[in-house]
């Protein structure tokens, strides 16, 4: 079955891949904001992560409580092989659509 990813799911998967073992709520939000300039709320991020987890595109693991979180735990995420495939298809499709299109001001070829 072909999985269709939403924009936020794409951004979240990419952020999780970039962050590696540090991929959790705050890190994901900060990464998306810093690199894409888009602000995504925690609610939207966790909703996307829940859906991705249900489709086995990411796997989550609860960490230990920390003082900086007021004694609450983190949940670390990693992208599964299926998640990588889904992301590649999604981005390939996007690039295929963008191929040959000249966008003014773009830094990409």
């Amino acid at each position: 079955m072909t999985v269709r990813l939403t924009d936020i799911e794409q951004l979240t998967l990419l952020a999780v891949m970039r962050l590696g073992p540090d991929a959790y709520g705050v890190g994901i939000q900060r990464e998306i904001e810093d690199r894409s300039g888009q602000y995504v709320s925690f609610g939207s991020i966790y909703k996307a992560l829940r859906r991705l987890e249900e489709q086995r595109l990411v796997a989550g693991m609860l960490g230990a409580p920390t003082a900086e979180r007021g004694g609450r735990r983190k949940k670390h995420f990693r992208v599964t092989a299926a998640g990588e495939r889904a992301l590649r298809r999604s981005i390939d499709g996007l690039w295929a659509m963008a191929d040959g299109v000249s966008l003014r001001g773009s830094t990409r070829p």
Partner: protein
Amino acid sequence: MNSNRRDLPLWCRGILRAIADPQDRELVAGDLVERWPELAARRGSGAARRWLMRETLVAAWTLGVRQRLAGLSGQVKRLNPGHWRFSSWRNDARDAWRRLRSAPGLATSIVVTLALGIGANTATYSVLNRALLDPLPYRGGDRLAYLYSGGESFYFVPTMGLADAWRGASSAIEDLTTFGRVRAVWRDVSGAEHDVNGARVDAGLFGFLGVLPEIGRALLPSDPAPPAAAPAVVSRAMAARLAGDPSSAIGRSFQVVQRAFSPATNEVEETIFSLTVVGIMPVGFGFPSDDTDVWFRHGPLPQQTIVTVLARLRPGVGAEAASRALLAAERAAGVRTNGPEPIVRFPADILGVSAATALW
């Protein structure tokens, strides 16, 4: 947020309770606590507070309310897929119509209940609008008041002598007019009798109210008064009864029969007089009551004659000040006794619709 305790404000934790999954709740709360100091340092505490509010509400909506609604909608569809539609208003309306048709008894009772409720509300508002909100369609309508004579718990219409004396209270009264209601019958050309409500009025009544006949002329002080043959102004409905086409009623004459019991003779006495239409009032004019159809002059009246007195007070003069001025005028005219005192009332039924009647 208390930076030492590293926890969220109470309101924030309260809102986050809307998140359905406790693990999601813990993760979001932990992220908010962790990111707060960074944002407060970068953007200031005010902006950080706004950020916290926005994040909290979005999380509560996305992971709580919206998820619950989606779950509820799914459950309902599973339970009764043929009857529940959330897709559009039109579907809801169609569904309601089908349900009402399938239960005509229930539908009838709902419609009747709604009709009664809406009708009662409309009637109540109409009375309030007429009595309190809508200014009277007469000149200086908000200053019109009936003048009576009475005490704390009673009042009655005054005599012509008192009305004449009250004209002297010019500091409080701008103008006043006198009239009396007439219940009689009128005879058509075949001799058949029909009930009619009329009023004997001052020739200046229409000028006083600021409403003139739509066709023809108003009454003049030089016009004769019954029982002599006299000119009359009639309502548009009366004009139509007299001539079919109201505009051709001018100049028509009709006979009026007034019957009254006479204690002197112990018999009902008839007064018959002829009226000739000289003016036709516009539709909607009804004074002193909505069903008044004929107006004619009352002649010079004996001082003991009982009349209804309607006055227009001067701007800014209240009922109490007007009563004092009327009392002074009585004394100045030499008609003051130790009896009843003047009473000024701003009636809700100046138009002729009494509030008590209209309520029913």
